């Protein structure tokens, strides 16, 4: 139906008599054994697109017959098409002459057996499959007298090469990053996990875009229930276009209204590989370097690959810094507002005096000040992201000078507030995951409003509500706060503290199911101790 749209329009430009026949044919297009008809049908269906290349040639010398190679320009590896298809088919080995089959239908077998010097070959007898294969960058070989098409795997064309990741940068650790090509991405992971247990499943999403998506998991480690859940949700997807993994992410994540990300994404093959080894499931979408990882927990967004390259004590310190940054990001401005407007008795007296002296020239209450400054900071950041690189420097200079200095000198904002806002801003960059930092930035404004109205009362209630909210989240059945709540001692090995490598079992127990985890974990504990008690007695 969808294919009919542009096609029938094209057709209306042609003869009206043919149009009726053409549209009548559309519904039941098949690969005809007449080569000319098939080629005409392909051309017509694609609207004689200029990037459609058809090369007709003859096979055999004694009893030659016509064949054609059809491919989309720019999507194929031209060298492969030239060398392994055209060249291979057109040069006629001497012995092939007498073997030339009598029946047209047998030609297919001969070409398959002798003719093509290509690794990836398939036979297509369905029109839609053939067209999809053609549009995916394969070369279709049609033989006169054959109602089947041969698909030669010649996918190629220009892709960005593997380069350093632009986000999630590490000091020490692998420097490669995923690219837009699905196959390359899978290879990047396979190169790291050379195990037959790494299973890959292909599927297609997007009724129009037909985007390839690969589901990767370790057969022996992935949680069966999670895997089924992921597959179930994927099967429910009904979408026209998939241009980025976030399209899929938004359709399969747990349906709760929350700013917090419940699906992890990464650009780094080593992170994806590590997660596969921990029993998670990786989803790679063709056309984007960002792969999805499920299920995830909050603590994962505060981990960086660096942690595993560094010594455990240093890594633990870095983790702590990140957790503190998250707290500063969430609560920094709001605690400052609460202190200076509601609870100034908590501030040491000399500092309070200096604070009040600064306040003297400033007409706004602390809350307004903070919101102005934070909003300005958000604008700066937004501008900084989209600035051409050459201008980026200007933004930071303008931001630092104008907003930092001038705003204080003009008596709009107190210097301390500038410090607080700057600290919050830096803290937001200390969080390794952009998704979580964005969530924190949004929640921060909520806390600021609560603090400006109710001081620490607002902050405390806000914290309780926030903890409850995060507690209620799940990612594919895994509680979002997993190793903290439900609390598991084994899970603590790799959350705030990263224990030394010799104590790390690569799979911390944070993937249990919400209902089971708590009980089964605890039950195991008691039954073990019970056994111990019995044996002791």
């Amino acid at each position: 139906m969808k294919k009919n749209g542009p096609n029938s329009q094209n057709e209306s430009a042609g003869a009206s008599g043919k149009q009726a026949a053409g549209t009548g044919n559309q519904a039941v297009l098949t690969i005809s054994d007449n080569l000319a008809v098939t080629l005409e049908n392909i051309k017509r269906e694609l609207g004689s697109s200029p990037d459609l290349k058809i090369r007709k040639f003859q096979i055999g010398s004694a009893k030659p017959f016509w064949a054609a190679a059809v491919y989309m320009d720019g999507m194929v590896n031209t060298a492969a098409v030239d060398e392994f298809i055209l060249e291979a088919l057109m040069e006629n080995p001497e012995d092939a002459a007498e073997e030339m089959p009598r029946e047209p239908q047998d030609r297919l077998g001969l070409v398959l057996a002798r003719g093509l010097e290509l690794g990836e070959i398939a036979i297509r007898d369905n029109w839609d499959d053939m067209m999809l294969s053609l549009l995916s960058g394969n070369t279709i070989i049609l033989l006169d007298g054959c109602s089947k098409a041969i698909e030669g795997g010649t996918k190629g064309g220009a892709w960005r090469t593997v380069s350093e990741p632009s986000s999630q940068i590490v000091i020490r650790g692998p420097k490669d990053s995923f690219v837009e090509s699905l196959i390359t991405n899978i290879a990047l992971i396979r190169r790291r996990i050379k195990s037959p247990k790494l299973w890959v499943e292909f599927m297609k999403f997007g009724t129009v875009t037909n985007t390839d998506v690969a589901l990767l998991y370790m057969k022996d480690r992935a949680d069966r229930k999670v895997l089924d859940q992921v597959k179930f949700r994927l099967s429910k997807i009904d979408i026209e276009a998939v241009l980025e993994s976030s399209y899929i992410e938004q359709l399969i994540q747990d349906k709760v209204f929350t700013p917090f990300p419940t699906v992890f994404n990464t650009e780094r093959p080593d992170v994806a590989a590590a997660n596969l080894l921990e029993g998670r499931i990786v989803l790679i979408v063709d056309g984007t370097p960002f792969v999805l990882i499920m299920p995830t927990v909050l603590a994962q967004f505060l981990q960086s690959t660096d942690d595993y390259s560094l010594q455990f004590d240093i890594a633990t310190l870095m983790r702590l810094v990140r957790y503190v940054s998250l707290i500063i990001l969430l609560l920094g401005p709001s605690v400052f507002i609460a202190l200076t407007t509601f609870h100034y008795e908590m501030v040491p007296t000399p500092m309070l005096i200096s604070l009040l002296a600064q306040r003297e020239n400033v007409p706004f209450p602390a809350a307004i000040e903070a919101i102005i400054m934070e909003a300005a900071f958000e604008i700066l950041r937004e501008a900084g992201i989209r600035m051409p690189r050459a201008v980026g420097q200007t933004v930071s200079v303008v931001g630092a000078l104008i907003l930092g200095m001038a705003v204080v000198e003009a008596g709009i904002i107190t210097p301390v507030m500038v410090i607080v806002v700057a600290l919050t801003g830096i803290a937001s960059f200390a969080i390794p995951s952009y998704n979580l930092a964005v969530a924190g930035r949004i929640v921060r404004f909520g806390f600021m409003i609560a603090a400006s109205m109710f001081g620490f009362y607002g902050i405390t209630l806000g914290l309780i509500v926030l903890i409850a909210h995060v507690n209620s989240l799940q990612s594919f059945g895994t509680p979002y706060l997993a190793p903290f709540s439900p609390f598991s001692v084994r899970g603590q090995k790799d959350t705030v503290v990263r224990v030394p490598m010799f104590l790390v079992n690569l799979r911390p127990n944070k993937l249990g199911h919400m209902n089971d985890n708590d009980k089964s974990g605890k039950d195991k504990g008691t039954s073990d101790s019970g056994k111990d008690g019995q044996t002791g007695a």
Partner: protein
Amino acid sequence: MRDIRIGPVHFFSLVLMFELGTALVVNVGMEAGRDAWIAIFLGCLVGMLIYTGYNYLFKLYPDLPLSGYARAILGKPLGAVVVTLYAVIFLNGAGRDMRDGSALLVMAALNRTPIMIVAAMMILSCGYVLHKGLEVLARTSFIIMIFVLMIGGVITLLMLFSGEMEWSRILPMLGDGIKPVALSVIRSNYMFPFGEVFCFLMLMPYIGDKKRAVWIVPSAILAAGLIISYTALVNITVLGSDMVERSPFPLLSTVSKAALSDFIQRLDVLVVMLLIIGVFFKVAVYYGAAVIAISDLFNLPYRTLIIPSAIIILFSGMLDSRSFVEHLEEGGEMLTFVYPVFTIVIPAILIIVAAFRNYRSRSRPG
């Protein structure tokens, strides 16, 4: 809501947070003077004793909340009346605690905020968390419990280092004999906060691990008793019983005495946070119990009852008395005359009737 299962640790933390509630911050058991901490401890033992009675009912009906087995034991009509009474007392309890907490907060920190707004914020937050479910409430309580224990540790360390504690202030122990202590226990101490666990009659069936469920609440009561008793002890050693008796928030006065050099001077805000957290969990548990009781009684879905109950709690709590003094007065009377009916009398009747029925049904075939 049938499929809720709360882990034992989370249930423990929920009970602990409920018990600590406001009791940590306000004056408890001060009728006993400098022996208040003994009175509190005795009160806690009484609370545990009461709970063993509840456990009997729990063992008979491990899958039913109070609202379920009250009707099973007393028969439909009478049971329904009892459950209605419980629903009312739960709503009332939530309202009272909310009023208490808001008034204390307005006194301690938010002098210029209208109390109605403070209370509304509280009940909104509780409503949100309950909307997310009891399990979320329990799991939240666990994280908050760790936070509270950390605050407790900080305060303890500060008190030790600041050298304000004077152990002679608790001497002589039981100097006036056992009588004032016993009186304090009997009048209100066993009831506030330990008797209030009757809310958990509604929540017991949601414990995931039925075998250990019997021990969770009593151990939480004991832990709470020890902590509150310890707090009272610290208050008395720092302030002296005389000042503690006259102070509305002794812990606030105690903590404000702590100072480390010039930098850490006033950590009152930590106490205010404890108060907020405590009030939150008290209100939330009463509120949750009420919602479960009503939904069970009228067979209505749990979530739809959250907003109506919030409105009832907010207004009944705010309008039950003209002033805070009257509210406290009322509260004292409630503690002495009304709450025991629900904590002791009705459960006792239930136990007796259930035991009798049990006995009869068992003896009949034999």
